[in-house]
């Protein structure tokens, strides 16, 4: 059954097949290279890309000889084509997505830093109340916007137009025993409300002025129900200086005291005259400067001390509050509470004292 001729033939066939595979591979490679040739560009230096901005920078030297030899427009177009091709190649590498039948490439973050149009927004400076609340450790309580109105039998806003339990809208007001029977109690309430609104507005403006570091004129007198002695004295002073000559020719009452805190007038030493006082002053100043121990401003020191204590107390209270919350769930809170006591000894003591009357 063995047929040598057929065996040889088979061998040849396999040989041929091997040849064709190699050829095919080479051919395919060549084809691919040709394909890539149309989209690949040779450059001495690689371009810098910022694909987020669709930007490419070509740092290569441009040969001015080429530029002169060729026609200008053609040269520029050829250069632009090469660079654009490289940029497009880079963009086509990005991950794509199909959104509404359109192929979209996701752009990365921009790398080129450009200046801003306007400076970054500043945080709003805290109001006077916010500063105080922070110092004392007062935290906002969330209140519901709507409250139940007993008389109207419906839910109403807590404040503002058509608010619940509006005392200026009462149809009947009891006249207090101490009040003047002829006084209109309704008018009194509306007036009080209006004054509170005005005061709030003033505070708002003051906060703005403080934030902008503008000097506000000292407000002479605010409307008040009851004026204290100091305020009355201030009112008298304001009235006295409110003349055309700024109170220069106003007479003083026999036992009247000079106004307090009315500002100082600058006074200068005479240019020539007694030098001994000047010498004394200078020597004192030198002594103060050369002394190692700093001069103690008692009021300032006391104030800073008080502030410090307040702040510590507030911090301790806050820490304690957080600990209490934790304790509800587990016993892990106990360690925390102890730590707090150890740190602010005074604050902890205060808490204890407050705790005792509740227990007894």
């Amino acid at each position, binding site marked *: 059954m063995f047929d040598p001729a057929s065996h040889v033939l088979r061998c040849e066939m396999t040989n041929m097949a091997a040849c064709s595979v190699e050829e095919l591979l080479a051919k395919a490679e060549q084809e691919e290279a040709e394909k890539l040739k149309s989209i690949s560009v040779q450059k001495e230096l690689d371009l810098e890309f910022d694909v987020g901005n669709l930007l490419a920078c*070509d740092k290569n030297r441009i040969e001015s000889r080429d530029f002169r030899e060729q026609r200008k427009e053609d040269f520029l177009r050829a250069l632009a084509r090469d660079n654009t091709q490289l940029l497009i190649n880079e963009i086509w590498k990005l991950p794509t997505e199909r959104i509404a039948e359109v192929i*979209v490439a996701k752009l990365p973050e921009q790398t080129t830093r450009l200046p801003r149009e306007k400076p970054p927004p500043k945080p709003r400076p805290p109001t006077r109340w916010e500063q105080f609340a922070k110092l004392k450790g007062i935290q906002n309580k969330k209140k519901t916007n709507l409250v139940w109105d007993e008389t109207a039998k419906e839910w109403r806003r807590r404040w503002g137009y058509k608010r619940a339990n509006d005392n200026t809208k009462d149809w009947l007001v009891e006249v207090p025993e101490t009040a003047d029977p002829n006084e209109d109690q309704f008018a009194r309430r509306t007036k009080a409300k209006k004054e509170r609104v005005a005061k709030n507005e003033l505070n708002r403006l003051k906060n703005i002025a403080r934030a902008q570091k503008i000097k506000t004129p000292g407000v002479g007198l605010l409307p008040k129900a009851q004026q204290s002695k100091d305020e009355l004295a201030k009112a008298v002073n304001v009235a006295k200086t409110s003349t055309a000559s700024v109170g220069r020719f106003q007479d003083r009452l026999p036992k009247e005291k000079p106004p307090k805190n009315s500002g100082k007038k600058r006074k200068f030493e005479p240019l020539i005259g007694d030098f001994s006082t000047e010498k004394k002053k200078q020597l004192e100043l030198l002594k103060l400067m050369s002394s190692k121990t700093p001069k103690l401003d008692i009021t300032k020191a006391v104030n800073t001390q008080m502030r410090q204590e307040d702040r510590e107390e507030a911090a301790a209270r806050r820490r304690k509050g957080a600990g209490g919350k934790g304790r509800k769930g587990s016993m892990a809170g106990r360690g925390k509470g102890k730590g707090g006591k150890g740190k602010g000894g005074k604050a902890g003591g205060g808490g204890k004292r407050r705790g005792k009357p509740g227990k007894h």
Partner: protein
Amino acid sequence: MTQLDGIVKPKTKRSKRFLESRAPKLIEDVRSTMIMKGGNTSQTITTALKDIYSLKKPNAVLYKKKNITRPFEDSTSLEFFSKKTDCSLFLFGSHNKKRPNNFIFGRMFDFHVLDMFELGIEKFVSLSEIKTSKFPEGTKPLLVFAGEVFDTDNEYKRLKSLLIDFFRGPTVSAVRLAGLEHVLHFTALEGKIYMRSYRCLLKKSGCRTPRIELEEIGPSFDFVMRRTHLASDDLYKLAHKQPKALKPKKKKNISHDVFGTTFGRVHMQKQDLSKLQTRKMKGLRKRKGEVVEEGHEGQEPKVAKVES
């Protein structure tokens, strides 16, 4: 309270919205451009300004009347207009004997001039002179800068930054690949800056990435640099300052090595080994009887309590 008149409190919701739109923002809007002409303009300048306007269209304002001002001598009027229209980029065109066909590109920071570049037009071909099909309005262009001067010379560096700012259009997170139609090419060569605008034709290349063919559509300019006004380094740095909120937050306890591998520590709760499920075997199975007995023992004292 006369001193407080400068602070405006909006009285209506509408004016409040308007003021908010003008206020500085964390992530800024697209810069808008004002395009205006000076006291005297040539035909070249007028058409050139119009062409630039059509390139920039949705984010630009074209001023119709002439404004007799010289930005390099006194920029206050420009600053006023910038504040009025909320534009932070400007293009000013003028023409006189000393500086014929003059363009001034500039940008503002906080409504004050940051930098300005005076570019003289040597040659200009307008958009309408080249009769080809153009690209749709508002296309985000591909920007290409060529020439080593753009990286070596300080003035050119700034000019490049300004031109990027001027022409880049809105910042987007994604682009439609077929919509990349417009290429702006800037070439700095032999002291001149060639600005060319091409339409980009995507041809089949046999692989995924297309082959590019370019077709000039205009406007094209040959610029020469004239006067410049660069911001001081301090101001330039200040203008680049990034707000804290935009900076990427550092994640604690995570590190990377040279190869980009992330290292971190994973914290696990202690495993309860008593509940560990081991191999089930007949011999280890709990017996029903034992459990019952235990229960009896537990109940006994209770009963005793009731009796006493």
